C-alpha cells in the first residue's frame, strides 16, 4: 500500500504575508520577513535550506502557522528526503526499535470509552481515585497503540506513515468509540497528524483536559480551592493541539490556581528541552531549561504544573531545586478534591 502523503497547501504560503512559522521560531533568527519567506520557499521547493539543519524539532511552528498548514510536518518530510539527522543515528534506531509493534496488546478491560496511556508508565501511577471512577480499567497501553508522533523529532515521517494506519486500526478493533488521550502526543496525532496525512480516524479523540474539566464539574462539591500560584509547563506536543490550551485556564479557574503570567508560557512557551539535549547537546538544552525555570521563579510560581510525563522526567527535580513544587495536572486536580499527589519527585541521585 502506498504511504499516505502530507496534505500541504503551497498556495497558503504564497499568500501568507507574515511567514509566522519561521519569524516566530525561537531557535532561528528570521526577524526579516522577506528573508523568512525566501527561506521557506526553499523548504517547500525541496531545495537546500538552513532551516532543515537548524530546526530543533520543537513543534512550535505547527501552532505559529495561522492557517493550519503544517509547516513542521513539511520540515520533517524535507529533512527525511535529504537524509538530515536532527538527532544522532543510534538514538533514532533505538526509538524505531523500541516502539515497533510486536503484537503484544496491553489492554485493561476496554470499553467504548477508553483511556490511552500512550507509551508512558507514569499513568499507572497517576490514574487513580475519583477522577477516574468508571473508566480506570478501560485502558490501552504500549506499542500496538502508540501514536508514533515522536518520530517527528527524528525526521522519520515514513515510520509514522507506515505505522499509524495500523495503530488506528488496532484502536478501532478494540471497539473504542471515544479515546481519552492522556498525552498530547496521542491527541495531537489523532486530531492533527492523521488529518494532515489523510488517515481516517474512526473514533473520537478526547483531550484529557476536557475529560478532567468535565469530571471536576461533576465533583465540584468536593473542590477546595488551592489558592496557589502555578507556572504551567507547556510541552512540545501541545503545539499540535493549541486549541486545548484554554482548558488549563478553565481547570485552574475551578481549582483556585493562578496561572502566573510569565514570559515563557502560551505561544512563547519553552519546551522541557530534553529532545534538544539529544539533538543538540547540553549547551542549548541547559540554557533553555535555565531560562524557563528562572522565569518561573521570577514570576513567583509556587508550583510547576506539568502536562507531559516526559517533561516531568526531565524538569521536575530541577524546578524542585529552585524551591518550586512540581506536580502533574492530574495530581493537581486530585489535591483540590482532597486526594493525594501520586507522581512524586524522581529520585535521581540514586544509591551509591
Amino acid at each position, binding site marked *: 500500500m502506498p504511504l499516505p502523503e502530507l496534505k500541504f497547501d503551497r498556495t497558503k504560503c504564497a499568500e501568507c504575508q507574515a511567514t509566522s512559522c519561521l519569524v516566530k521560531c525561537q531557535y532561528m533568527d528570521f526577524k526579516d520577513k522577506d528573508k523568512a519567506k525566501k527561506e521557506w520557499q526553499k523548504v517547500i521547493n525541496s531545495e537546500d535550506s538552513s532551516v532543515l539543519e537548524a530546526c530543533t524539532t520543537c513543534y512550535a511552528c505547527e501552532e505559529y502557522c495561522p492557517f493550519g498548514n503544517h509547516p513542521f510536518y513539511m520540515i520533517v518530510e524535507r529533512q527525511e528526503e535529504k537524509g538530515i539527522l536532527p538527532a544522532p543515528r543510534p*538514538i533514532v534506531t*533505538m526509538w524505531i526499535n523500541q516502539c515497533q509493534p510486536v503484537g503484544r496488546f496491553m489492554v485493561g478491560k476496554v470499553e467504548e470509552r477508553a483511556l490511552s496511556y500512550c507509551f508512558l508508565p507514569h499513568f499507572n501511577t497517576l490514574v487513580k481515585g475519583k477522577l477516574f471512577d468508571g473508566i480506570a480499567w478501560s485502558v490501552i497501553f504500549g506499542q500496538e497503540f502508540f501514536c508514533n508522533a515522536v518520530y517527528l523529532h527524528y525526521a522519520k515521517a515514513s515510520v509514522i506513515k507506515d505505522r499509524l494506519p495500523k495503530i488506528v486500526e488496532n484502536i478501532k478493533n478494540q471497539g473504542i468509540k471515544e479515546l481519552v488521550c492522556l498525552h498530547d502526543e496521542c491527541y495531537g496525532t489523532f486530531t492533527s497528524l492523521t488529518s494532515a496525512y489523510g488517515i481516517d480516524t474512526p473514533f473520537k479523540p478526547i483531550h484529557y483536559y476536557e475529560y478532567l474539566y468535565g469530571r471536576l464539574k461533576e465533583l465540584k462539591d468536593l473542590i477546595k480551592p488551592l489558592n496557589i500560584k502555578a507556572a504551567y509547563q507547556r510541552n512540545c506536543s501541545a503545539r499540535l493541539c493549541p486549541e486545548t490550551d484554554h482548558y488549563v485556564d478553565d481547570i485552574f479557574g475551578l481549582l483556585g490556581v493562578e496561572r502566573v503570567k510569565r514570559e515563557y508560557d502560551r505561544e512563547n512557551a519553552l519546551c522541557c528541552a530534553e529532545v534538544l539535549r539529544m539533538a543538540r547537546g547540553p549547551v542549548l538544552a541547559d540554557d533553555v531549561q535555565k531560562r524557563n525555570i528562572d522565569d518561573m521563579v521570577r514570576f513567583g510560581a509556587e508550583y510547576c504544573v506539568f502536562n507531559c510525563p516526559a517533561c516531568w522526567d526531565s524538569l521536575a527535580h530541577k524546578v524542585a531545586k529552585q524551591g518550586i513544587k512540581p506536580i502533574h495536572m492530574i495530581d493537581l486536580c486530585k489535591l483540590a478534591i482532597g486526594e493525594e499527589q501520586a507522581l512524586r519527585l524522581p529520585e535521581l541521585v540514586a544509591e551509591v
Partner: protein
Amino acid sequence: MTTTSALYDSLVKIVGKDFVSDQKEERYFYARDGGLMPPHEPDFVVMPKTTEEVQEIVKLANREKVPIVPKGAGLALTGLVIPQLGGIVLDMNRMDRILEVNEKAGYVVVEGGTTHGALKSYLQKHHPNLRHSIPDSPPIATIVANAVIHGQGRLSQQHGFNSDMVSSLEVVLPTGELCRIGSCSVSSYWFSKGPPLPDLSGLFLGWFGTTGIITKLGLKLYPCKKMRDVMLFLTDKAELVPDIMLRLSHTEMVEDVVVSAQPLPLRFRGTFWIMAYITGDSDEELEFKRKMVWDALWEYFESRDVGLLSTSPEMKAPLMSMPSKDLTRFADVSKGGGFQYAGPITPIEKFPAFIRKLEEVATKYNVFYASTARLIDAGHCMMFSFSFSFNRANSDEMARAKKALDECSKFALEEGGVLWKADIYEQRLLMDKMDPNTLVLMKKIKQLLDPNGIMNPGNWEVK
C-alpha cells in the same frame, strides 16, 4: 585411608554435627553450580566458623589425602566449586564477619565467606563515606572468592581488578599452617598485599583455591561521593566503541564504563549502550564531570555516530543499582535458571571482532545472547562477556549454549585474549598456549604448597 564414617566423625568433632553433612540432598546441591559444567558429588559438605576449624579440616584432609574445595556462593558458574574428585566441599558462608574498618587507611578486613552484599550494607550504615568495588554478581557473592578469580566491579575502571584492591591476606596453607601475606605479616595494619615486601599474594589470587584457603582478606575502600549519575550513550558502530571507551577513561572523571549489547528487548537491537558513571559531592562537581564526558565524545556526537539517551528515573534505577539488576534479570531470561558467560580479559581494540563473533555464534547455535564489556584499569584491558542464557530443563539448549561458549573461548584466545575464571576445559586451552617455563613454575609452586594435591584438584593442574 580412614573410612568414610571415621572421616565424618572427625569432621563432626571439628565443626559440630550441624555443620557437616554427607546426606544425599546436600551432596546433590553441592555437586553443581548454575553453569554448564557436569555435576560431581562431594562426599562431605562442611561449614567451618573459625580459622582454627579451617586449619583442622585442612590438616585432616591433607593427612587423609582427601580433596577439599573451598566454596563461596558458587556463582563463578564455571564449575570451579564442583568437587571433581569428590571429597570435602568447604562452604565458607559461616565465616562472614566484617572484622575491621580502618577509615583513615581506607581498608576493611573481612572473613573468608563475607559477601559483597553484606559489606555494601555495612559500609552504607557505618561508613557512608567509603565504598568498595561491587561486582554485578548477585549480592551473595563472596568478597574473597571474587578476588580469588580476579573479579571486576564498579571501581575497576579506576582501580583495576578487584584483586588489585586486596590489601593483605590470611591463608590456611594446604598443609594446615596459617600464613599472613602483605603488610599484616609484619604490622597490625592491613594496607598492602605486597609492597614493599615480596608480593606473595600472587600465590593465592587467581589460583581458584588450589593453593590455600583464604580466611581473612583486607580490601581497599574508596571515597563514596554523595551523588552518582549515569550518562547513557548509544552508538551503532562497533568499531567506534574502543575509542569511545578510551576517551571516557581519558577524562579521569568516570568511575565505571560498561558497554552492553543484546538483541532483545527490541530497544537494544542494533545499538551498543555505553554507560559512563560519574560521582560528585555537589551538583557543581557532577555538572563539571558531565561536561568533561560530553567534551570527550563531542566529535562523535557531531558526526551523529554517538547520541546521549535521555533516561527517565524508571530507566535509570536499574542502571544505578549495584549489583546491576539488569544483568541478574538477563541471567534468567530463558526461564529455567541457566546462565553462563565466557568473559575473556582482552585489549579493548578487540571489541568489534568479539561482537561480530558473538552474533555469528549465537546464530549458528540458535541461542539467546548478550554481552557486557567492562573497562578495566583506565583502558589497559576490558572484560568482554560472551553471555548465553538457557533453560536447564532443555538439554538440547544447554548443549548448544556450551558449544557456543567453547567456540567463543577458543576465538578469544586466538585473538590474544586471556580467559577469565576459566573452567577446566578452558584452563587446558590456556595452559596449552602458555609459555612452557611459566607452566613449570606453576607446577613447582603447586607442588611446593600442596604436596598431596588435595586442593581443588582438576583445576590449574599442570600435566
